């Protein structure tokens, strides 16, 4: 059974069609790239998947369940996690607390144990702390555990955001332009990080990215959106040579000349 089935997904904002009849079927363990010019509707796909938008048409079946009417926090519990184009950390909280919050949907306890500090409060808190520190260790962020998240260097903030998303124990991970604003060195590190998490956590990943070297180096399959419609789908090589993709990115020379 496919992990994700998107059928004829459509989103309108008033008269603007942000996404039009978008189809995507993902098997467990796939790593696909979603590319396209600015405003093509890539982030709209993520916002629909994670429940921040409700579709105008079509359906999303995740892990056998329809996501219609589900809130973002419910979708997270079902096993989907995402990062954001503009980093959204809990800036004034410690790096450790940023990861601890992810356990909200995995390990938790009632209000009464919290107020009175009775079991299972201490046991669960220890469990959460141990797991969070372990995650920080894996991603080389342990040394920052007590630091406020906003004081981290840019590249580390990105890594923390991914770490935090993974701590929610997802099966599908949505990465929205993880390499945005990174230098080539950081991008290279990110490349190996994404590969590593897919292999170690057996994740299915959808990646939105503008950095072509990253997309071409990572993804087995690439989808190209333009003006809300899927215009091409295939291996990175096929995509690079597809005339419609080149046109979407560089503009059609003849039309441009004619319009002048």
């Amino acid at each position, binding site marked *: 059974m496919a992990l994700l089935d998107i059928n004829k997904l459509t989103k309108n904002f008033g008269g603007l069609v942000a996404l039009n009849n978008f189809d995507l079927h993902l098997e467990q363990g796939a790593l696909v790239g979603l590319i396209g010019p600015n405003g093509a509707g890539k982030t709209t796909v993520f916002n629909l998947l*994670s*429940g*921040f938008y409700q579709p105008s048409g079509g359906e999303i079946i995740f892990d056998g369940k329809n996501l219609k009417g589900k*809130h*973002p*926090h419910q979708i*997270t*519990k079902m096993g989907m*996690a*995402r990062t*954001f184009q503009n980093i*959204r*950390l*809990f*800036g*004034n*909280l410690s790096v450790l*607390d940023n990861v*601890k*919050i*992810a*356990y*909200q*949907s*995995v390990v*938790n*306890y009632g*209000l009464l144990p*919290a*107020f*009175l*500090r009775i079991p299972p*409060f201490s046991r*669960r*808190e220890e469990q*959460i702390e141990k797991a969070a520190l372990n995650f920080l260790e894996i991603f080389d962020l342990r040394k920052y555990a007590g630091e406020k998240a906003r004081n981290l260097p840019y590249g580390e903030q990105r890594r923390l955001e991914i770490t*935090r*998303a993974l701590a*929610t124990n997802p099966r599908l991970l949505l990465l929205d332009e993880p390499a945005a604003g990174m230098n080539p060195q950081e991008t290279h590190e990110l490349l190996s990080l994404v590969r590593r998490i897919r292999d170690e956590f057996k994740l299915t990943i959808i990646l939105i990215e503008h950095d072509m070297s990253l997309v071409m180096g990572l993804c087995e399959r690439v989808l190209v959106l333009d003006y809300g419609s899927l215009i091409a789908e295939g291996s990175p090589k096929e995509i690079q040579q597809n005339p419609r993709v080149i046109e979407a990115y560089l503009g059609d020379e003849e039309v441009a000349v004619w319009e002048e």
Partner: protein
Amino acid sequence: MILKKYSTSITICLALALFFTIVQLGISGGLISGYWVTNLYLMGINIILAASLNLINGFTGEFSLGHAGFMAVGAFTGGIVTANLGLPFPLAVAAGMLAAAIAGVIVGLPTLRLRGDYLAIATLGFGEIVRVVLMNIDYVGGASGLMGIPEVVSWPVIFISVVLSLLLIRNFICSSHGRACLAVRENDVAAQMMGVNITYYKVLAFVIGAALAGLAGVLYAHYYSIIQPKEFSFMLTFDVLVMVMVGGLGSLTGSVVGAVLLTIASAFLQAIPELRMVLYAVLLIAAAVFRPQGLFGEKEVTLQTFKRWGGVFSGLAGHKQAD
């Protein structure tokens, strides 16, 4: 080993017991004048109000101005239980807190979808509605107020209420539920993606804050014996807001210090009430301009802080390094 594990709690308990005894002796020995006893009780009530408002405005990042309303709900419910129904004081506490909590749910559910200014206006409206409605209910005495409430509030009652309220808020904030509230404040979109039900936590913080404001109201009613709706005006909310802002949004220690400082200040300014509001306004503006994070920012003063200070001082004395 066990002693070491609980050493912090034991130290705090001993310090609190000592403080309690000293003040109790001062009151029964007549060393603290009646005027200052009143202000001491007010200080306690204000600490509960400031800390609970801070839970909503500082820790969860919602901007509520309805605290006087919740306090009024608690005060009048408590007053009805003891004065009109003749039931014992503990029942009044339970009923007052419950009524304020229910009011919190009723106000919170629809309004917490609003953000920032809109929430402030909606909760402000709630406070005014409570006041005006109470003025028009004859059962609670209308505008002249509810009278004959037994004066059962004493130093032990105030002290225990303050300690338990602060402990409750502290435990809440330092739990996974409190972390969820902080996450809502920091970034509500990311919080949702971490599995936090943001509506639930906004309402929860609001309700806990309201219930504690209700407790403050019950204490207030059972100290003064007469309560009038007009006492629970927006000015009261404003007083509490200044305490929270001066102490620091997101710092419990700050709320305690803010409440103590401003209660003392207003005690000295009792003779010139006009100037008192001017001073409050100036304080609020000064805090916003010069120290927007308040006296304490988001920091807390704990035993660790004192140990650190101790270390610094002994270090200074030993090595004469001023850094």
